[in-house]
Every structure is written in structure tokens, then in C-alpha cells.
């Protein structure tokens, strides 16, 4: 028996990254002969940057952050779609009934995050005029305070904020949820240079994540307990949040579409320093090596 | 009841190196208008006594009374000239240092300046009022301190070797000025000096302290000569010799 292979992975603290947590808490990494250190930071996207210096071997986060990092270092690649965020991001309003009534009012958006991506999609999908809304840049954790104080009339942000805000502030309701607009997806990223020279470890990690995903699908209650333990959060709360997403561990045309969308959005914001294609950002070999059937592109 | 009463006063300092009893059972009564000179070897406790009388330090035993009321802290009624020059305000000019006490009483700018200039004159620093302490010589700083205390016109003056860093001539001039001010206003003065001649020339009584630890008043010599005093007179010489003998005895107790 060989000594376990050491790996470091990093991500945010958020149930949408559950496969990482479950793979660790449920022992899937260990069973695949991996000794994995899971580091956490303020958001999954922030941790993707650490792939560049090869400080970590894998990260889990949103499309835009992955593409941005790929632009700086082509070694940063997406190896699998991890999570589809079905009812995860919403526009939540206070004392407003619908998007029509929101016209001329202030909307809080966290710039550069999924919040902004989502708001841009809402505007384009519903054919709204961006000039009708005053966008206020607010960090996600301050959204509730700003809404409570009346600095903004609505915000576009991910869970748990909408749920929290609805519980805490009267007369609030969800105006649009991302289900109607755009399914946002979180991807698993790796450093390609490292992965190619450690193909064995890479394949084992993919295998462990797939097993974790299958475990979440078959044992949602137990999986939620594991995630709650890892995050030191309330079990029921985590279980509720986990129903709003779907864990995938595959690569589909939808995955490619989302990467393409992220590229387009970055271009629109003048943040695309050079042209890239989804084919460059996505690297399917590891997933193919672990479970060829899950690669559907 | 005297104007000032020191009643069994003692002071023990507690430091890292243990306790040190600097002053023990010090008794003295000063009448109003007296000019009392305190003499004693270096380190015998003169400054310590003065600090207690000024109200800076509380005696660790005994009591000090001013007009019958215990001294609880410093006040404008007792003007102090300190040993050393740390008490001058570096950020003020010589003139503003002198006028500091007047400013506290919200005296007008012009009047303040006039008084300060008069005292600058008196201590021989005419025209040097715009200099800051760091631009003054040792003796000049000392004179600014004296001028500051005098300009404030306190009822009682406590002076710790005020003329120590001065040349004989400047010293003589200031002795004369002090004596004149004292005779005119009859302030009560406690004057610490090492100069026996100076003490005999200025004082109505001279006190000599025993050396420490436990420094205390050893003897008091009244000097009943008229002012201004003739320093070469036989009576003056007799006083001088008497005080000198007391101090000498203190240094060489077995001779």
C-alpha cells in the first residue's frame, strides 16, 4: 500500500461547494488514497487565484473568476461543472411588487461577482432598460443592512442573503429568481501543469468528487449533516439551502454555454484582455479518465 | 501661630533600592514677612523640605500648615524657583515664560508685556526677551526662572539655590534686587543656598540642617542686622563665623 498522495484544495464556505466537503467528511478522498487539505476563504472565486502560483491543486468557484484567472495563466482550467445553482440568486425587493415597480429605484449589486452577472442577465433576458435602475455597489454581507436602512430598494444577490432578508425585514419578496433567467454554474478548476505531471492524483480526485456527488444525490440528509459539520452551521438551514442547487460533476453543452457567457460578459465590461474560447478554458481529460460517460461535449 | 508651621515633618522615599528616610522630625515656624535661609550639605534634604512646603509632595509623617490650614497642594500664594532649568517652557520665549503667571490671570497682552519687560530688565536680560530657553545660557535660564516667580507676585517665595549658576556680579545685583523687593513688600521667603555670605546678607534667620539620612534642622541663627547690610562690618563677620562653624561641625563632627 502506497502512502496517500498529498493535495491541497481551496474554496469558499458555501453549501454550493458541498462535493468538496462531503468528499472529505465522508472519507471519499481517503478511500481513493488521497490526503487532502481543504482550505477555505471568503469566496470560492477568490481562491481560484491561488491556482496561478500553484499554491493549491484545485479550486471550486464561479465561471467569471475562472475565466479571469485563465486569462492571466492559461494553466488554470475548468475540469468539471460542479454545481448548477438553480434557485440560488434572486432579485429581492422591499415594498415593491415586481420589476416594473422597481423602475427608478435603487438596486444593490455586488460588483464583479455572480451578483453582477446575474443582474446583467436579468436586464437582457427581460428586455429591461438598464437606465431605468440606479445600480449601487454593495458587498453581499452589507446588502441586508443597506436594505433595512433604506439605502437601496432591492438587491440582486445569492443565498443565504435573500432568505435571511425575507425573514428579517417585513414587506420583502423575491421579484426574480435565477431559475427564470440563467442557471449559474460553479466549476471545479485545476492547475493543468500540475495535473498533467500528477495524472494519477488528478484522476483519483475526480473519482472522489464523483462519488461524493452520487452520495449527495442518494443520501441528501446525511450529506447535509456532513456539510453542516464542516461549515459549523445549523443542519436544517444547510439542508434547505442544498435543495436550491443541483450537484453535477459532468461537462455538458450547458457548461460550455455558461463559460461562453462569462467570456462575453467580461468582454462587455471591457475586462477581457485577450480572446479565449470555452474549449481553451475547459480541459476534459481528467473527467474522461475518471468517468468517460460524464463528458457530454 | 506662625504664618508657616512645619510640625514634626518627615519624608521617607520608597524606591527600588529600598526605603530612604530623607527628612526626619523637621520642626520650624516662620512668621509672616520673614526671610529664612536654609543651609546644609549637599543631599541633606533641603529640596525635599521645600517640595513639601510647596505642596508637591505630602510628608510621610507630621504636618505642614500655612496660616493654620494644612498644605494640600501647590498654589499661587507660594512662588517657587526650582533647582535646575526643567521647569521653563521650551515653546515660549523668555518674555512669555516670565508672563506665564500673568496670562493665567487673563491679564491683557500689553500690561503683561510691560511687566515682563520690567522683570527682564531687573535680571539683566534687557532685549533678550524674544529668545527661547534653548538659546539661553545656563545662568540666563536661571534668571528667567527668578523673574517668572517674582513677576507673579506671590505672598511667599520658595527659592532653591536661585543664584547658583551666576557670576559674582550678577549675583550681587540680584541679591540687592531681591532684598529690595522683600523689604518693600515683606514677602515671606524660604531661600536655599550654599553661600554662607549670601545667607547672612539676606536672611532674618539662618537655619542649618543636619546631614542625612534623617536630615533635620540642627540650629537656627537669628541675624538682627539692619538692611542693607555692610558685609565687612564686625557684626556681619560674627554671624558669618557662627554659621560657618555650625556647618563645619556638621562635616567634621568629631573635630
Amino acid at each position, binding site marked *: 500500500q502506497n502512502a496517500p498522495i498529498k493535495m491541497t484544495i481551496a474554496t469558499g464556505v458555501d453549501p454550493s461547494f458541498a462535493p468538496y466537503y462531503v468528499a472529505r467528511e465522508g472519507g471519499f478522498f481517503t478511500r481513493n488514497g488521497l490526503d487532502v487539505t481543504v482550505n477555505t476563504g471568503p469566496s470560492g472565486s477568490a481562491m481560484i487565484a491561488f491556482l496561478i502560483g500553484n499554491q493549491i491543486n484545485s479550486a471550486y468557484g464561479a465561471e467569471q473568476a475562472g475565466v479571469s484567472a485563465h486569462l492571466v495563466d492559461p494553466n488554470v482550467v475548468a475540469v468539471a461543472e460542479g454545481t448548477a445553482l438553480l434557485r440560488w440568486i434572486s432579485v429581492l425587493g422591499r415594498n415593491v411588487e415586481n420589476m416594473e415597480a422597481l423602475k427608478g429605484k435603487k438596486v444593490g449589486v455586488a460588483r464583479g461577482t455572480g451578483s453582477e452577472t446575474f443582474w446583467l442577465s436579468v436586464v437582457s433576458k427581460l428586455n429591461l432598460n438598464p437606465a431605468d435602475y440606479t445600480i449601487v455597489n454593495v458587498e453581499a454581507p452589507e446588502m441586508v*443592512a443597506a436594505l433595512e436602512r433604506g439605502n437601496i430598494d432591492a438587491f440582486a444577490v445569492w443565498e443565504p442573503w435573500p432568505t435571511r432578508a425575507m425573514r428579517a425585514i417585513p414587506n420583502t419578496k423575491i421579484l426574480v429568481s435565477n431559475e427564470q433567467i440563467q442557471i449559474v454554474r460553479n466549476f471545479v478548476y485545476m492547475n493543468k501543469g500540475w495535473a498533467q505531471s500528477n495524472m494519477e492524483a488528478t484522476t483519483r480526485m475526480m473519482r472522489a468528487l464523483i462519488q461524493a456527488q452520487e452520495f449527495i444525490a442518494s443520501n441528501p440528509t446525511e450529506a447535509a449533516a456532513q456539510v453542516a459539520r464542516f461549515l459549523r452551521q445549523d443542519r436544517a438551514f444547510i439542508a434547505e439551502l442544498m435543495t436550491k442547487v443541483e450537484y453535477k460533476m459532468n461537462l455538458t453543452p450547458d457548461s460550455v454555454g455558461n463559460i461562453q457567457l462569462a467570456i462575453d460578459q467580461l468582454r462587455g465590461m471591457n475586462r477581457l484582455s485577450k480572446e479565449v474560447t470555452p474549449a481553451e478554458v475547459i480541459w476534459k481529460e481528467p473527467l474522461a479518465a475518471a468517468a468517460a460517460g460524464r463528458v457530454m461535449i | 501661630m506662625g504664618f508657616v508651621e512645619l510640625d514634626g515633618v518627615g519624608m521617607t522615599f520608597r524606591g527600588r533600592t529600598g526605603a530612604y528616610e530623607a527628612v526626619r522630625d523637621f520642626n520650624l515656624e516662620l512668621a509672616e514677612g520673614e526671610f529664612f535661609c536654609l543651609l546644609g550639605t549637599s543631599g541633606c534634604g533641603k529640596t525635599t523640605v521645600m517640595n513639601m512646603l510647596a505642596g508637591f509632595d505630602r510628608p510621610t509623617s507630621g504636618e505642614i500648615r500655612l496660616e493654620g490650614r494644612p498644605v494640600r497642594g501647590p498654589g499661587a500664594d507660594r512662588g517657587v524657583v526650582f533647582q535646575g532649568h526643567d521647569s521653563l517652557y521650551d515653546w515660549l520665549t523668555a518674555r512669555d515664560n516670565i508672563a506665564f503667571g500673568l496670562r493665567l490671570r487673563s491679564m491683557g497682552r500689553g500690561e503683561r508685556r510691560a511687566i515682563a519687560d520690567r522683570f527682564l530688565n531687573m535680571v539683566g536680560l534687557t532685549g533678550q526677551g524674544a529668545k527661547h530657553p534653548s538659546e539661553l545660557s545656563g545662568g540666563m535660564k536661571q534668571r528667567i526662572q527668578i523673574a517668572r516667580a517674582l513677576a507673579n507676585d506671590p505672598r511667599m517665595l520658595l527659592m532653591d539655590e536661585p543664584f547658583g549658576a551666576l557670576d559674582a556680579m550678577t549675583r550681587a545685583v540680584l541679591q540687592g534686587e531681591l532684598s529690595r523687593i522683600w523689604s518693600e513688600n515683606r514677602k515671606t521667603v524660604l531661600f536655599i543656598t550654599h553661600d554662607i555670605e549670601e545667607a547672612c546678607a539676606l536672611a532674618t534667620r539662618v537655619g542649618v540642617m543636619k546631614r542625612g539620612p534623617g536630615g533635620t534642622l540642627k540650629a537656627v541663627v537669628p541675624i538682627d542686622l539692619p538692611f542693607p547690610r555692610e558685609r565687612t562690618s564686625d557684626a556681619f563677620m560674627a554671624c558669618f563665623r557662627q554659621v560657618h562653624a555650625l556647618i563645619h561641625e556638621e562635616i567634621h563632627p568629631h573635630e
Partner: protein
Amino acid sequence: MNSRAATVAGYLIGFALLFAIWHLASVFIVRSVLFPSPFPVFERGWVLIADGLLQESVWASMRRIIQGFLLGSAIGIPIGLAIGSFRPVRLLLEPWTEFFRFIPAVAMITVAVIWFGIGEESKIFLIAYTTVFVVVIATAAGVGAVGKDKIRAAQCLGANKFQVFALVALPATVPYILTGMRLAMANAFVTIVAAELVASNDGLGKMLWDARLFMQVEDIFVALISLGLLGFATDRVFRLLIRAFAGRFNPTM
């Protein structure tokens, strides 16, 4: 004159050395895409200046820094003097200052937003918050170091507690206050970055966060260098003002 020339020459050499080492480090030692050499950074800086974007950010941040810094100092100096001068005040207020100064401004963002909303006020509050404690401590330490003969002299010239405070403790403490303010200025610069995390649409902090999110390494370094150089310049101006207006309080600075 000669000494001033030496000073400027020293600064120029110092900065040249700094950039030379940076260049060498980026080329030979670190070699990471996240650590660019100075040239692309200067190039990017130049572009931002040409577009007027850098000036805009600098101006927005500097305005906040200066307002918060002045507010914080104006509150901190009297509190520090009071803590240093009056024992009851010290006993009562010290738990407050010694408690809050360890709580980071970044953690106060939420509270700031609750109280002051997401506008300028909350940013200025955060900067003042970070300034005030340094000034309080330095001022109180200064009061403690005033020569006791200076205070005694004032007392027996008839000064009451307030006069000792205003006419002796304050001026004698000026060098300490100024040192405290110089130290606090760095806190203000540090905090602007946290403050502009809150709902802001301009400023060097926002530039930094945006650049971080989109991995625009050159922009990050432009923002950092701007902060550093601005800080350096502000500190020099502060020292000049001190020399010009408060020189007599402070022969050593």
C-alpha cells in the same frame, strides 16, 4: 540648501533602488504572473493617467482619507489629553479605547452601514475610527512624559487643572501628538481600502478590489504604488507643515 539637496538625492536613490530590486526580483527570483516587473505596471499607470481614471480615484480616496483623518484627530487629541491628565477619566475611558482599538475597521463595516448608510459618511466614519485610537494613545503617552517640574511650576503660578491641561500638557505634548498623527495617517490609508469595499463607485480601494476580482495584476500594482507614493507625499507635506507652523514645539522632528 545643501542638506535639502542631499535629502532629495537620498530619496531618489532610495526609490530607484526599490524599483531596481523589484525588477530584479520579478525577473530572477519570484517569476510569477502575479508579480509583474515594474515596466508593464508603469505602462498601465500611464494609460490610466491618460484616461484620467487614476487621478479620479486618487482624488476620491484622498478626500475621504483627509476628512476622516482630521475628524479622528480632532476627537482623539482632547480624549488623549484628558486620559493622560485626569485619573478618573483614564480609568473610565481606558477600557473603551483599549477595547475598540483592537477591533478592526473592516469588521466594523456592517455596523458603519447600519449607522451611516452606504454613502460617504460610513467611509469617513471608518477612517476616523481607525485614526482616533492611535492619536489617543500617543497623546496620553505624551502627557505622561511631560516633565513634572513644568507642571509644578504652572501649579504654583496659579494654574487650575484646566490651565495646566491647555497651557502646559497640550503644548508639551505636541511632538507626541504629531508622531501619533503621522502613525495614524498610515492607518487611514490602510482603512480606505476596507472602507471602499462598502458600496463605493470610485477610489483607489475600489480600483484594487475590482482588479483583484478580475485578476488584473498590473492594476493591483498601480493602486498599491499610488497608495504608497501618496502616503509618502502626504507624510512629507505633513512634516513640512509641522516645521513651518509648529517647529518651536518640536525641535527633533
